[in-house]
């Protein structure tokens, strides 16, 4: 009896984790792996007449306009990520360190309030703020600081502003969570060893919150480089980013093979970014 029981326990024990993990694996297989394989096949197919081809990939490297879209995407994403981190960190720090504990929940809720509105609506709202007759230009011309309205809307600056508004909120959450996890004893120990507030921040707090920053920065990178809506609404198509280039292939011509190849190249860039972050932060050991 005991022996039978002992035999059955390990079998049940080994099956249970698989049973629990199967839905997630099935989901990933169905909605990520299989579509990805399909996209891979599509990217190696000629748009006209079918058949195997590498031309969808070679076009990216030989057509300067396509290549420029990637450069634009990387530039915009880099600017947005850096600016968002620089704005979010002090914001998160004030929330975590300066706002009394009982007000923190409310302050955090207010900080993420813009998340509650639609992404598209938020982008169009920025267009109204930045437009020639928008709030900013009216304020500047009304106060006499400028005589002619500035071109703020339909520029890279506008697209970056829309992005930063969104990602500062996201980064604030990740950095705030990281700051709250830090034990006060780190600061006390640093003070005991004679470190002032600046030195404590630079040598203790900042390195310890780096994982939070990097996780937020990576999320910002991934979401920003793949976003179509914000540059489309706010950028005024005065330059193309990769998602816009991908969409362009589909609209009239229905060139899914080229769109697939461009998407896979974009995904490869995201993968490189992930590998760089993972190695630096040693996320795999966490």
């Amino acid at each position, binding site marked *: 009896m005991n022996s039978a029981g002992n035999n059955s326990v390990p079998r049940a024990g080994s099956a249970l984790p698989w049973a629990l993990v199967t839905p997630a694996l099935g989901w990933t297989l169905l909605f990520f792996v299989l579509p990805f394989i399909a996209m891979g096949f599509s990217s190696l197919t000629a748009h006209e007449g079918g058949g195997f081809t590498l031309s969808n990939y070679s076009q990216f490297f030989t057509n300067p306009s396509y290549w420029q879209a990637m450069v634009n995407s990387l530039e915009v994403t880099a600017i947005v990520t850096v600016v968002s981190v620089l704005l979010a960190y002090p914001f998160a720090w004030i929330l975590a360190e300066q706002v009394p504990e009982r007000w923190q929940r409310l302050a955090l809720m207010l900080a993420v309030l813009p998340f509650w509105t639609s992404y598209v609506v938020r982008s169009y709202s920025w267009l109204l703020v930045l437009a020639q007759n928008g709030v900013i230009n009216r304020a500047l011309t009304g106060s006499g600081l400028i005589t002619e309205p500035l071109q703020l809307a*339909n520029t890279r600056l506008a697209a970056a502003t829309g992005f930063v508004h969104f990602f500062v909120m996201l980064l604030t959450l990740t950095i705030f969570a990281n700051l709250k996890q830090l034990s006060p004893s780190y600061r006390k120990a640093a003070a005991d060893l004679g470190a002032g507030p600046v030195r404590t921040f630079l040598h203790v707090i900042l390195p310890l919150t780096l994982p939070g920053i990097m996780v937020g920065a990576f999320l910002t990178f991934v979401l920003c480089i793949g976003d179509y809506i914000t540059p489309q609404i706010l950028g005024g198509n005065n330059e193309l980013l990769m998602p816009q*280039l991908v969409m362009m292939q589909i609209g009239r011509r229905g060139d*899914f093979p080229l769109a697939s190849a461009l998407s896979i190249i974009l995904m490869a860039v995201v993968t490189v970014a992930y590998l760089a972050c993972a190695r630096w932060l040693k996320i795999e050991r966490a």
Partner: protein
Amino acid sequence: MSVKSGNPLCILKRHLHAACAATALLLGAGNLAEAADLNALIWCDHSDPALLQPFEEANNVKVNVKEFEGTGAGLAIVEQSQPGDWDVMVIDSIDVPRGVEKGLFEPLPEDKLPFADLFPQVKMDGSTVVGGKRYGITEKFGYNTIGFNKTKVDPADMQSLASLTSDKYKGKVAIYDYYLPVIGMAALAIGKKTAELTEADLPALKDELLKMKANAKLVGEVTASQTALATGEVDILVGGGEWVTAGLAKENPALDFSIPKEGAVLWSQSLAMFKDSKNKDMALKFIQYIMSPEGQARLATSSCYWGMPANTKAALTDDQKKVLRFDEQPGFLARAQAYPAPNADLDKKMQDMWTEMLQAK
């Protein structure tokens, strides 16, 4: 029995059976509903309830619509669907042959549709008739030309495409983000016929496009370019026309369009019926309704965008006719040129040229 029913696995099994039965009922109901429905792949102007409701009520049918933009995207939806899922489709008139090549469309019965009432120039037989059979009927048309705010620009300047690249309007221009009509306008500006464009014309067309871009503040899709003109962000829309200005006429009567001396590009959209439609009688009724004087008036003044009805007998009010400049159409049509209809290779090259223009600093 009681032991069985108390077993959690059996309870789960029983619930699953019940769920399956409910799902089967729902699916059955869905199939029944499907049989009485009409499934239409459409542009946004067909989703206006003011257009669909009278047809639905008169025929006791539900019109299920799916909007798409761009023929490629529309045909992709069809390819990903089961044969018979769709009954009718709205398509660029010049792209009707693409659907015919794929074996998607059913020839239309000419004797049951009001072809005699259509403006002759918009029948587009070159595209809508393939192999001697008619597969599409033009339902709405208009012009990709110059849309402008007449209180901000000199209307006399808008009679020439040269104004679009002049320093006088630098930074006051938006370009509609669709390569074919704007390349057509560039062709008109350099004195080329839109129907005769070849690869050899691309360098000159690119120069013209780059000049337009240098003057432009933005290149925007429908909503963005319309908003830019309506809010005063720009004063001129290259590629604009009645489809931008007419719908906004009440709120902003200063918006207008011109057909410059070089001409304008004629756009037109057609209705086609799917060969595999399970509801061809209703599909034909729908096309007949859209082409009727009442349907044409409702389609022409759809909340999404206005445009000229293809049927000369459209039941428009005098005010609506005035806004659409209905009575001026014979003159406009005489000066309008065909929408560029490149073959696949030239189409790709034109789109790449457009990409290059967008990336130009």
